[in-house]
C-alpha cells in the first residue's frame, strides 16, 4: 500500500472510530417532545420541577405539570383520557384506576418502567393499590391509611386518654369542644367527592359492617349506612366552620392552626404536623390507629402512562422513563431530605435510619399499628367514581342542611346505583 493510501485509511478509520464513540456518547434521546403531565398539587412534584435539567439530560426533553384540585383533576383526566389525549402522563388514584384500566385509557406500567429503577422497592400496600386485574398501572407518589391524630396537651389538660373505640372518641370530642376558646372537638370533610367527604364517611360505614355491592346488587342502603351518616352528621356539629364545604385542606389546615383537638385523617397529616413551616402545633401531637370499629381508608396516588397521549412505542417509553425518574430512589431521597413525609413510598426509604431520625419512633409505631386496620373501603369498580361522587353531592347536602332525609338520599343513591349497573357494557 502506498503511504498516501495508508494515511487515508488510518484517517478514515480514525474518523469512523470517532463517529462511533460520539454516537455512543450521544445515544438516541429517549424523548422527542416535552411531556405533559396532569396532576394534583403535591410538594413532591413541586420539588421535582426544580430538577427539570436533570431529566432533560437523561431523556432529551423536559416536562410541564398542570395542577388541578382533586375533583377537577379527576374530571379533567377522565375527559382528556377519553377524548383528545393531550396529556402524556396522568396522576391517577385508587378510586379511578379501575375505570382507567378497564377503559384502556392507561397502559400497564411495568412494560415501560426500566428495571434499574426497581419497582419492587415500593411499599407492598401501595403496589397492591396500584394493581388492577394483576397488572400494575401506576407508580406511587403518595399513599397510606388513616391515623388518629390528637393534641396531647389538650387531652392531658382534660384528663383524657387517647380514645381506642368510637364511643370513647365521640365522648372525648364532646368534652373537648370549646368554640368560645377557638378549639373544636374534631374536623371532618363536608365537600362533595368520592375522595372528599365520602372518603371520611366510609370508615364509619365499613366499621358498622356496611358493604357496597353483592356481586351486581347494591346492598348499601341498610342500617350501617344510616347509622354511619347519623354519626357523621352528629360529629359535624363539633367541626370548625369551613369544613362543611371543605375537604383535606380545610380540616388539616384547622388542626395545624391549632383549632382542633383530634381528628382521623390520612397519614400524610402526621408529617405535616411536625413541620414548623406549616404547623403551629409542633411538639404537641400524638398518633394512634383509628378507634375501632373504624377501618383505615387505604389509598394510593401515582403517575400512569396515558394511552391516547402516547400513540407509539417511543412516547410510551418516554413517559415510562419520566415516571420512573420521578419516583426513583434519588428523588424520594430528595423528598425525605425536604421533610416531605407524605410523599415517601419506597420501603428502602421508609425503613432507613434517616427516616427514623427525622420522624421519630412514635410515628413509626403508629404507622405499623394502623397498617393492620387499613382496608379498601370503596367499591373497586370502574363505576365507583360516578357512584361515589353522586353520594358525595347528597352527603354535602345533608351536611350543610339543605336536605335532612338520610333514608331518602340513600334510596336515591340506590336507584342511581341500579342504573349504573344496568347501563354497563
Amino acid at each position, binding site marked *: 500500500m502506498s503511504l498516501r493510501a495508508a494515511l487515508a485509511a488510518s484517517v478514515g478509520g480514525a474518523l469512523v472510530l470517532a463517529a462511533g464513540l460520539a454516537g455512543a456518547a450521544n445515544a438516541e434521546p429517549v424523548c422527542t417532545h416535552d411531556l405533559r403531565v396532569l396532576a394534583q398539587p403535591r410538594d413532591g412534584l413541586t420539588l421535582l420541577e426544580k430538577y427539570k435539567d436533570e431529566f432533560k439530560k437523561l431523556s432529551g426533553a423536559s416536562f410541564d405539570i398542570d395542577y388541578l384540585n382533586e375533583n377537577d383533576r379527576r*374530571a379533567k383526566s*377522565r*375527559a382528556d383520557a*377519553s377524548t383528545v389525549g393531550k396529556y402524556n402522563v396522568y396522576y391517577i388514584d385508587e378510586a379511578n384506576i379501575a375505570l382507567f384500566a378497564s*377503559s384502556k385509557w392507561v397502559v400497564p406500567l411495568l412494560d415501560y418502567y426500566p428495571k434499574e429503577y426497581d419497582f419492587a422497592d415500593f411499599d407492598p400496600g401501595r403496589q397492591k393499590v396500584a394493581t388492577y386485574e394483576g397488572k400494575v398501572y401506576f407508580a406511587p407518589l403518595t399513599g397510606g391509611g388513616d391515623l388518629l391524630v390528637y393534641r396531647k396537651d389538650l387531652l392531658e389538660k382534660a384528663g383524657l386518654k387517647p380514645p381506642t373505640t368510637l364511643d370513647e372518641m365521640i365522648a372525648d370530642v364532646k368534652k373537648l369542644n370549646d368554640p368560645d376558646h377557638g378549639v373544636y372537638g374534631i374536623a371532618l370533610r363536608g365537600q362533595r367527592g368520592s375522595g372528599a367527604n365520602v372518603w371520611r364517611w366510609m370508615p364509619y360505614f365499613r366499621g358498622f359492617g356496611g358493604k357496597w355491592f353483592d356481586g351486581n346488587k347494591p346492598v348499601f342502603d341498610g342500617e350501617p349506612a344510616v347509622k354511619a351518616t347519623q354519626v357523621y352528621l352528629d360529629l359535624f356539629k363539633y367541626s370548625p366552620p369551613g369544613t362543611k364545604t*371543605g375537604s383535606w385542606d380545610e380540616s388539616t389546615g384547622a388542626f395545624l392552626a391549632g383549632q382542633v383537638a383530634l381528628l382521623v385523617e390520612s397519614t400524610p397529616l402526621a408529617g405535616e404536623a411536625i413541620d414548623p413551616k406549616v404547623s403551629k402545633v409542633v411538639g404537641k401531637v400524638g398518633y394512634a390507629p383509628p378507634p375501632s370499629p373504624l377501618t383505615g381508608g387505604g389509598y394510593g396516588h401515582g403517575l400512569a402512562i396515558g394511552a391516547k397521549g402516547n400513540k407509539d412505542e417511543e412516547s410510551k417509553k418516554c413517559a415510562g422513563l419520566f415516571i420512573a425518574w420521578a419516583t426513583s430512589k434519588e428523588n424520594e431521597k430528595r423528598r425525605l431530605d425536604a421533610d416531605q413525609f407524605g410523599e415517601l413510598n419506597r420501603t428502602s426509604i421508609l425503613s432507613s435510619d434517616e427516616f427514623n431520625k427525622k420522624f421519630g419512633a412514635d410515628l413509626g409505631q403508629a404507622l405499623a399499628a394502623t397498617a393492620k386496620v387499613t382496608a379498601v373501603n370503596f367499591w373497586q369498580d370502574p363505576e365507583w367514581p360516578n357512584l361515589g361522587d353522586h353520594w358525595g353531592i347528597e352527603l354535602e*347536602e345533608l351536611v350543610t342542611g339543605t336536605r335532612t332525609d338520610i333514608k331518602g338520599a340513600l334510596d336515591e343513591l340506590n336507584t342511581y346505583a341500579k342504573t349504573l349497573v344496568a347501563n354497563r357494557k
Partner: protein
Amino acid sequence: MRIRTHLPFVFTAPTMAVLAVLAFVPTIDAVNIALQNRELSNPDSVYVGFANFRMLFSDPRFLNSVWVSVEWEVITVAATMAVAIPLAILMFEATSPRARNALCVLFIVPALLPRVSAAFVWRFAFHPLFGLAVYPLRLITGHPIDLLADPHTAMATVAIVDVWQWGLLFAVIIVKLLETLPRQPLEAALLDHARTWEVYAYVALPMLRGALISLVFVKMVESLRAFDLIYVMTRGGPGISTETLDMYAFSQGFIESGRISYASSMAVLMMIATTAAFTILWRRVRRWQEV
C-alpha cells in the same frame, strides 16, 4: 338616499352569512345532540328522541336549578337597580362635577374586571378565617362565619359580587343620563315646593324611563351569564343551593359523567326559554321607549 350602489350588499352579505353560520350551526347541533344519548367518553351514540327531555322534567336537580336561576335573576336585577338608582341620585346631588367624574371612572373598574378576578377578590375577602370583609363580624361575635358555606347566605354573597360589578356601572350610566336632562322641569318642580326626593321620583326618573327600562333589560340578559362567578365561588354549592341552570348543565357535561346529550337538552331548553322571553320583552321595551 343615494345612487344605486352595491355597497350595502357587499358590506352586509358576507358578514351576515358568517354570523348566520356561526350562530345557527351550534344551535341546530345543540338540538341534534340533545336528541341522542351521547357521552364524552364514548364516540358512538344513538338517537333517543325526546328521552332526555322527559328525564329532565322528573329530575329534581334540574327543577332546583331552574328555580335557583329564576331566584338569581330576580335578586340580582332588583338589587342592581336598587343600588344603582339611589347611588346615582346621591352622586348627582351631593358631589361637585369634578368629584363626580373621578367617581365615575372609579365605579367602572369592577365591571371591567374579569368575572373570575372579581369572584376571587371577594372570595378572598369573605374567607371565614382571614377575610377582610368578615373581620369586623369576627371581632364582634368571636366566631368565624362562613358565608359561602351556609345555604341561606351563599346566594346572597355571590349576588353581592354581581351587584358590585353591575350596580356601580349602572350608577355611572344613570348619573350621566341625569346630567343630560334639561334643567327646566326639575327647577320648575322645585319652585313648586316639591321636596328633593319627590323631584326625582315624579319628574327626573320618569323622564329617564326608557333608558331605565333598557338597563333592566340588559341586566336581565347579563344575569344569565353568572356562571363564572358561581363556578369560582361555590361550584353550585353548598349542596345545590347556588346551582343555576348553566352550572348544572356544565356539571353534567363535564364534571360528573360527561353526559353531553343530557347537558345539551338543558341548554336547548334554556335557549328556547330565554330567546322567547327576551324577544317578547324587547318588543315591549321598544314600545315603551317610543312613548
